[in-house]
């Protein structure tokens, strides 16, 4: 991608009205139809959830394991799926930010929104899985244990990761919000003004954001690997469940998260390109890069899968082998081979695109869809078979029939996700305006002013203070949630220790906001 294309890209949209380009604040029939559809899905979800709360989890297809059922079903599958999809956002942003992949830059914002929305859905499907939702909401902040991968780290990780993504998104969108204040009137103007708080479009504002977003990206990357790894540990540490106990779970979950996230982003990119006619912004090269990324991770996962199935089917302990046989040849053969076909065919197509040197957008779109289907199927094949087959002691094998209530709740969540996305599109430019060419390129101007020393000093002091206090709270909260200094199974030594930990993480990330948003006084540079 040379400079020429970028100039071409800019000139085509230069001076265009962002409101017109993205239909912001303007309702069209298609959009309204989409919202109505989502609302219908949400209604179905709410009705299903009320059923479940009223009659108990008997309305789901889950039953006691060993007594003919499974203890975890579709909800857990989708917890993993949603959190996996969230991987895309920060990965893409970090790739563009750290490795400077220009062609993915337009997709950073759609990807960040995808992360935030899917994390919300992940957290909500966690709640849907609980037998007592209100108790979960009250007892988790009070008693959450680090030692349990399910919540101790898991909810904490969701909340930290979600907050970190929100901070990242907020900071990276301020420049556009500032730009929008100049083009808008009335309520919208006030809204954008609050959003852009303190941003004045001067080169030093950009520079400051440049620094903070780089460090944020560096800090968020390990959080996101941890998030997916803890999901893997939920299963990986269960010695009592044949087929689960494996060190491969954590890396497998991380790789599958990248696959489903990238696949989902390709689908979103395709829709954006089509609806907003942005062929010159979301270029073929953008798709090609995402496709190549998807190809590499897909073959990695296929390798993991082959290794796992070979080991488990050939020489595993008897009960592990029983589970593996059930998956490959037994009652789970259909979802298993379907997932294999999905993964393998998308790899073959993407590989063809890679070697042919051409770009086929439909191949990327189809692969994106197929890998997401296989992501759901693979998660199902991890969660369910180990509970129905290969049980220790002579228990009968179980079955799992998904009920309409479970499907209804998941559909409601999906509806909510799409609705949030649709709403966002109507209030804010979905692509960064500089990549579309509406706003000027970032950070190319000469720095014309310097901050006076007193506010610069205060900015630095407040930034370091929030960061330090955040870190301190984080460590104290973590140790207390890990029950250091008390019996491992009872209350944390500090009340609400998990909340302290989460506050600590939030504060640490807020330090980036403080650094950028702290109001300063400036004087012009001497020429």
């Amino acid at each position, binding site marked *: 991608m040379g400079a020429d294309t970028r100039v071409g890209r800019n000139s085509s949209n230069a001076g265009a009205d962002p409101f017109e380009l993205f239909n912001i604040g303007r309702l069209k029939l298609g959009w309204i139809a989409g919202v109505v559809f989502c609302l219908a899905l949400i209604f179905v979800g709410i009705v299903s959830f009320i059923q479940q709360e009223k009659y108990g989890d008997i309305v789901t297809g889950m039953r*006691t394991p060993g007594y003919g059922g499974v203890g975890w079903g579709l909800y857990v599958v989708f917890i993993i799926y949603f959190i996996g999809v969230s991987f895309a956002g920060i990965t893409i942003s970090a790739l563009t930010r750290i490795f400077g992949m220009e062609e993915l830059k337009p997709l950073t914002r759609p990807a960040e929104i995808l992360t935030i929305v899917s994390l919300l859905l992940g957290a909500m499907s966690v709640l849907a899985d*609980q037998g*007592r939702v209100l*108790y979960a909401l009250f007892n988790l902040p009070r008693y959450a244990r680090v030692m349990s991968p399910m919540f101790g780290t898991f909810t904490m990780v969701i909340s930290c990761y979600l907050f970190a993504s929100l901070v990242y998104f907020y900071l990276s969108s301020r420049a556009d919000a500032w730009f929008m204040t100049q083009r808008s009137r009335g309520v919208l103007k006030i809204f954008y003004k609050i959003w852009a708080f303190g941003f004045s479009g001067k080169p030093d504002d950009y520079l400051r954001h440049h620094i903070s977003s780089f460090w944020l990206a560096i800090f968020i990357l390990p959080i996101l690997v941890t998030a997916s790894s803890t999901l893997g540990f939920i299963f990986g540490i269960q010695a009592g469940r044949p087929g689960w106990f494996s060190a491969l779970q954590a890396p497998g979950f991380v790789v599958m998260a990248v696959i489903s996230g990238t696949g989902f982003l390709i689908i979103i990119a395709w829709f954006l390109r089509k609806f907003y006619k942005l062929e010159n912004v979301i270029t073929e090269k953008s798709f090609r890069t995402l496709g190549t990324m998807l190809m590499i991770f897909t073959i990695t996962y296929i390798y993991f899968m082959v290794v796992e199935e070979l080991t488990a089917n050939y020489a595993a302990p008897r009960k592990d082998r029983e589970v593996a046989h059930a998956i490959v040849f037994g009652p789970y053969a259909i979802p298993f081979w379907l997932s294999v076909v999905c993964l393998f065919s998308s790899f073959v197509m993407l590989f063809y695109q890679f070697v042919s040197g051409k770009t086929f957008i439909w191949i990327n779109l189809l692969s994106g869809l197929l890998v997401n289907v296989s992501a759901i199927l693979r998660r199902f094949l991890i969660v369910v078979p180990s509970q129905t087959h290969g049980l220790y002691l002579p228990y009968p094998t179980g079955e799992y029939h998904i009920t309409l209530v479970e499907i209804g709740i998941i559909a409601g969540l999906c509806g909510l996700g799409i609705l949030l996305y649709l709403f966002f599109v109507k209030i804010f430019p979905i692509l960064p305006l500089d990549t579309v060419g509406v706003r000027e390129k970032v950070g190319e101007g000469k720095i014309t002013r310097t901050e006076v020393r007193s506010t610069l000093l205060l900015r630095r002091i407040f930034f370091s203070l929030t960061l330090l206090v955040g870190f*301190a709270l984080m460590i104290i909260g973590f140790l207390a949630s890990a029950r250091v200094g008390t019996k491992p199974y009872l209350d944390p030594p500090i009340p609400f220790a998990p909340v302290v930990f989460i506050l600590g993480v939030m504060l640490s990330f807020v330090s980036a906001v403080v650094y950028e948003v702290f109001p300063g006084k400036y004087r012009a540079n001497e020429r």
Partner: protein
Amino acid sequence: MADEIERKRMEESKEQITNESKETKEGRREFLKFFAFAGILGGLSSIVSQLLAFVSKNGKENEDEANKKSVREKQKYKWGMVIDLDLCTGCGACVVACKIENNIPITGYSEEDRGTEIEWMSLIPAGEDKEFLMPIPCLHCDNPPCTKVCPVGATYINEEGLVAQIWDRCIGCRYCQVACPYQRRFFNWKKPDWPETYLQWLNPDVATRPKGVVEKCTFCSHRIRKVRERAKDEGREIKDEELVRLPACAEACPTGAITFGNLADPESTVSQLASSPRAFRLAEHLGTEPKVIYLAKEKRKFISREE
């Protein structure tokens, strides 16, 4: 100790408040920022000092913990059970007795109710052609996989080796149920229900459980408590004969196949039965160290196939 920390914290916060108010009275506007900064620094230092105090206290508590551990090794009671499969006729009296004793709801026969039954004590068909039944309560492992995974600490193993469940704290995530290699944990899939005439027979010693929580065998801990209190009143130790048929299942067993008692006492009936050459524990390779020991001569090989 917690009170002490609380008091210190109160005093510190009081000091902070008075300091701040003095400062603001005196202070001029330009210095306001500076004082705010100082206040934050003060807060930070108090946090650090508390952290230090906390860490030093931890050290002490760890010593205590170590002492307690050595006590636990020499602990007085370690509840365990021996089930003699050669004596068991599979009559199911233990299952029924357990259900009545512990207020376990009655499940219907409808298709929807399949797999929602709760049986702290179960009979599972075993053998080549499923020709004999095997009674199985919670095995009260010494190294339980279920307590490790509870996100809120609603289940734990107590000093006497009982794997306990705090129903009121349970949020119903079913992680423990999924983690138990022996499938001995039960989730209340629906609101517990009894026919009206049964309600008057509910055991007042045991709480009923709401829908959405996980429950399990307690080794009839309420009966253990009663025996302990009686012994304390009479100023003597708990006798072995009081324990042998203590839990409802053991009491109901017509052939006396179930024996309960103190595994920490080498003279007790359970300990002696547990050292029988017929003794084995279920799925021992998992390292869970169950405290329910089975006795069987011929039936052992059928069970070991499924471990």
